[in-house]
């Protein structure tokens, strides 16, 4: 008998909450007392944040200058198709103090840095300073892996090859005298890009590392001469290079060119007339691109962004409206139930 009982218990399933599907559980219910106040709360929060964002965004100043020169009246019109070195300048005025720090961006439109093949056309090992990949770059870089003489290109690939090479100077007209606004090119790239992702080979002088390689075909000068004045801004860790290599997600983008943080302009650009002088090197005419310069300051939430504030206000209002609708429906439902 005892044995039988033992045997019996051997077949009987265990009596645990898990096996018997009786695990303690929380069963949330979309009850009116939770959902409606939640909607009101979310709505209120979103409207609050939205208003704050909107106001912040409204206070941010933005100056945009298109210098493509499509228009024949435009000072840069002459440089539009010119392959030679060409310089043009544009003047603009700032009506009130442009609060600092001011950021100086260049922008391109209709430019597909996010094209798959374009984006893939680089060799991260090479850019990490691995000399093995200097002599034999990855085939991802095709057709910019080797030049016509079969010499390896460093840095290889379409992305590097197409590096933006317009340069700008900004001058402030003070009492009829052009005063150059100092531009600060430090720290405009990601910290991780500058310190980890891109590295020069540990060979000094840097030029020796590039023996037996060629500069990218479009480049006027090789990478180790990008900034000969500063070894920490030369080669692969040149800030402008890094900025370019961090490809944009969308075909219309802007990239940080410089900061205006020095001297008299640390507090911002005073009201007045300014002249932007452009060394126009980068052709965009062939693909109907546009080039522009953007001056902007930022707040805690970054640059000017009206959409975010408006979107928050709209979503918040929708929540509130929805909660009213739900309240009405719920009330009617309740009466219906009581009947």
């Amino acid at each position, binding site marked *: 008998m005892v044995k039988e009982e033992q045997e019996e218990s051997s077949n009987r399933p265990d009596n645990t909450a898990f096996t018997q599907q009786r695990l303690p559980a929380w069963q949330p219910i979309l009850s009116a007392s939770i959902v409606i106040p939640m909607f009101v709360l979310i709505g209120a929060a*979103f409207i609050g944040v939205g208003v704050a964002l909107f106001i912040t965004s409204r206070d941010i100043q933005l100056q945009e200058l298109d210098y493509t020169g499509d228009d024949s009246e435009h000072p840069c019109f002459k440089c539009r198709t010119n392959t030679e070195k060409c310089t043009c300048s544009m003047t603009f005025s700032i009506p009130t103090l442009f609060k600092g720090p001011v950021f100086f961006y260049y922008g391109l439109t209709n430019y597909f840095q996010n094209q798959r093949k374009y984006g893939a056309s680089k060799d991260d090992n090479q850019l990490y300073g691995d000399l093995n990949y200097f002599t034999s770059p990855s085939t991802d870089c095709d057709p910019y892996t080797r030049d016509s003489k079969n010499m390896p290109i460093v840095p290889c690939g379409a992305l590097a090859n197409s590096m933006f090479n317009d340069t700008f100077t900004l001058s402030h007209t003070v009492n009829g005298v052009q005063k150059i606004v100092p531009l600060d090119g430090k720290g405009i790239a990601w910290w991780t890009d500058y310190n980890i992702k891109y590295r020069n080979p540990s060979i000094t002088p840097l030029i020796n590392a590039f023996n037996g390689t060629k500069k990218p075909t479009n480049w006027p000068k090789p990478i180790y001469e990008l900034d000969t004045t500063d070894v920490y801004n030369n080669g692969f860790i040149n800030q402008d290079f890094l900025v370019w290599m961090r490809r944009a997600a969308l075909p219309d983008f802007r990239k940080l060119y410089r900061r205006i943080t020095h001297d008299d302009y640390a507090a911002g650009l005073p009201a007045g007339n300014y002249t932007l002088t452009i060394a126009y090197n980068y052709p965009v005419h062939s693909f109907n691109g546009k080039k522009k310069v953007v001056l*902007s300051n930022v707040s805690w939430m970054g640059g000017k962004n009206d*959409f975010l504030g408006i979107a928050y206000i709209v979503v918040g209002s929708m929540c509130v409206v929805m909660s009213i609708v739900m309240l009405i429906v719920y009330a009617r439902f309740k009466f219906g139930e009581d009947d």
Partner: protein
Amino acid sequence: LVCTRKRSLEERRVKANDREHNEKFQYANNCIVTSKYNILTFLPVNLFEQFQEVANTYFLFLLILQLIPQISSLSWFTTIVPLALVLSITAVKDATDDYFRHKSDNQVNNRQSQVLIRGSLQNEKWMNVKVGDIIKLENNQFVAADLLLLSSTEPHGLCYIETAELDGETNMKVRQSVSVTAELGDPNNLASFDGEVVCEPPNNKLDRFCGTLYWREKKYPLTNQNMLLRGCVLRNTEACYGLVIFAGPDTKLMQNSGRTKFKRTSIDRLMNTLVLWIFGFLVCMGVILAVGNAVWEREVGSLFQSYLPWDPPVDNFMFSAFLSFWSYIIILNTVVPISLYVSVEVIRLGHSYFINWDRQMFCSRCNTAAESRTTTLNEELGQVEYIFSDKTGTLTQNIMTFNKCSINGQTYGEVTDPLGKQPKRLDFTPFNPLANPDFCFYDEKLLESVKVGDLHTHEFFRLLSLCHTVMSEEKSEGELVYKAQSPDEGALVTAARNFGFVFRSRTPGTITTTEMGRTVTYSLLAILDFNNIRKRMSVIVRNPEGRICLYCKGADTVLLERLHPCNQELMSITSDHLNEYGADGLRTLALAYRELSEDEWEAWSESHRCADKATDCREDRLAAAYDKIEQDMKLLGATAIEDKLQEGVPETIALLSLANIKIWVLTGDKQETAVNIGYSCKMLTDDMTEVFIIGGHTVQSVRQELRSAVVCRLQNTAGSFRKMRQKLLYISGEFALIISGHSLAHALEADMEAEFVSTACACKAVICCRVTPLQKAQVVELIKKHKKAVTLAIGDGANDVSMIKSAHIGVGISGQEGIQAVLASDYSFAQFRFLQRLLLVHGRWSYLRMCRFLCYFFYKNFAFTMVHFWFGFFCGFSAQTVYDQFFITLYNIVYTSLPVLAMGVFDQDVPDHRSLEYPKLYEPGQLNLLFNKKEFFICITQGIYTSVVLFFVPYAVLSDATQSNGVPLADYQTFAVTTATALVIVVSVQIALDTGFWTVFNHMFVWGSVGSYFTIMFALHSQTLFRIFPNQFRFIGSAQNTLLQPVVWLTIALATAVCVVPVLAFRFLKLDLKPQLSDTLVRQKRRKPGGRSIGGAWRGTGSVSEGRLGARGGSRRSGYAFSHQEGFGELITSGKNMRLSSLALANFASKHSSSWIETLRRKKTNHTPPIKSVSCFSGVCFSLIILRSAL
């Protein structure tokens, strides 16, 4: 050798005791292999099988595409990691399954049997038994292979077998050896037996065998009557010897167990259709994007060549578009999720384990837990509309108990008081030392009546102890064992035994009883045997005092007509009692006797002898002779036998009917018995408007009966239609249809089946009796074909195997001797009543979980993948992915797999007891409401909406946004991280909304997944990995640069709100405006635990367990049922089945020669009963023997 092998295809030659000779033919040995792999073949065979799955091949194809550099838009590992995971999970599952098959094979193959080798009996494993061996079988042993019966310990080479495993019938069948071999009693003689059998090659016909035995230059024909088939059990026979003819896979049992059809659920089929649609959708997306690419390359890309020249092989935009198509197929492939199938399998496996673990489906009596033998059908359990049930062993226990009786107008046994305490079981031992201790009876009055010597009572039990064909065996004094041909008779004779009228023994001419302790020997003058037309049997005996008496028992309808007119008053009282018993579903017999004078007997005896010797129309003449003497009888009373139902059967049936499940009973049993069970398990009630009985034997008659049933139904419905419109449905449901096997054969013909289905489905209950196993399957197929409904078949015997296999879901009753049904079934458990839990609880939950799982699964994949589509419009249709490739690899298998799996395994809307209380909760499954094409479109629309939000919100915000240090946020990696994070958060919030039942696992998985996303992302974007593989981990630093920006979080919050708020509002409004029953129940539980019940309205009609005693209609119905077969009376009077030792008259045996077995057989075949009209039980049917003797 070739020649012999060829010949073995046409015929089989087996020489006894000659292994060398038989080996020439290379017959299969007795080893059975059902496993699929061994250690070496596992990997190649399993992989080959897995790649036959379209989905796996598709992903392999994708993998190959990804290896082409021009196309590859994603690294190869994004596909191979999930594919490897899926393949290995499936392989592990297959390996486990096969391991268990190996185990069960070994168990069967290692059973012991005694083989005669070189003149001595040796123990051998089953697998070592060879064709041509002679093996010895002992009582209650399984037959190891298909044997030719050579001899047995019983006289005349007879032996009895039970064929439950083969055909599900529990009554015994007789087999007889060829007379020449019957004499080879002992092993020594058998060892020298060298006969050769030439017979048909292996086949699956259970009822046929054709062969010849050549021995000592003589030929002996062999038939199925000489065969013992594998799977049978030897009964009531000490031992027998048999020659192995077919072994292992050649046996009829194995030949019948064809490859199991792989069953798929309707969700499976829907899923496959949807996957095909998605596939089409994918191709459309690919085409749209490829066209976009062509346009872009022509309009923009060609101009952009100064910065990005076309690849030399890609020198025109058309070719570029072609490549882009394939590239997009690769990156959009995640809409056809690779992990879908494996996740579904995992969920089903979980549900199967819950079924296996359910203590409430554990039968402690037979120590058997429910078992989910197939792990792929669970959600279909939530959609069942038709249940096809076997009767014997499934609804009933196949135990007959003497429950009530009516003696001389006094009813006994009516003590069961549902409210009172359990009445005391009578103890017979002090009164009667010969009593059977297992016999239960509760009414003391009857015992009192016997004790006081009431004449009627004594005569009543005397009749029961004399009028039967039971054989007795008395191993030692007082230890009586009855061998009854039918369980009814066994119950009656045992009842008489316990009440002091003990049947002790019989010879062909005498019956010895012990009446109230006094041994009396009656001479048995005649047995007026039972048959289905007469519906009665009688014996004529002469008692020691010389008085001749005829005792008769039979159907009340027949017997009451034959009473002496002076019985009028008693007859009406007894009729009332019979009526009562019948209404309670008891099987009734009326008992009567008649005293005969010597002259009467002499006269009749003469006419009987004449009839018996007649060569033509012997049957009819005998019947007429019997008819003549069974007249003017005096009514003694009636017996009521309970065909014991399994526990909880009526309640289960009632509950399942409330859940809108139609239950059909398909039984091989007789119509009366089937109808009786119909009443006792409340499928049929006296309140029913009409019970149609279809018993026609010709196409025309069946058609006419069906038509008249339709007309009758229409009339009823039309009448009520005028009166009360809304009751139409109710009225039309109150019909029942009973159809017998031969009518069914006609009804299943192509031109009538539609008519049959429409009539049958309009009925509340359908009972098909006398159906063959094949017909059972045909009925199931018919409903599958015409109703497109999910069917479930439940049965316990091998005769149910075909139906179990053809139904969508097959359920076997386990814990009994036969295991054929269980082996063929998808689910097995010990009690019919567990069906309610299997369907209403497990099935319902499985369906609910699976539907919720699928909805979410498609949603999350569309939300994930379609972002690429929108991005395509901004990246020159270049198949640039939005996300990091690691994110794409891990999204489906790590970041979002577990929460939805947890939901799919653990989710519950209402607790289990609620599902049983409110069977209406089952309806959404039957109507397929929770996941269908419409729901699918809603899911993918929601998914696409989410993808739009997830792309365009970051697009709008980030395109101009900058970090607080002025660095723009619109770089590709920031965009990718923002979108991916928003996606993970949105789908996690969505699963949180979808999860209705937050167990600890759900919490763990939901929070864990979000946590793992951030952890893994930070790890993948860390310096360490980048330093090792700079080329793979390009996203270095993106996580920290992005996620530290408030704008990014504001973007994510905005996207989440835009995605979730409308869903939340929609769900709330739906809950308020169109609540489902389950919603209401959940709310009700929350609001007022145990409070006011809204259940009444939902619950349908009345309480489930409400008895309907006393709710009897006016119509009278006979409760007669008697599962007896004809021919045994003659067997007894011939003395053939009696041991020589017990035969008083040795020469008696020769009197009828061996004609009895011929008679037995003839009776089975040449019976064509007349056709009766629709509305009465025709009762005239083929003898059951037709089916039973088939073996």
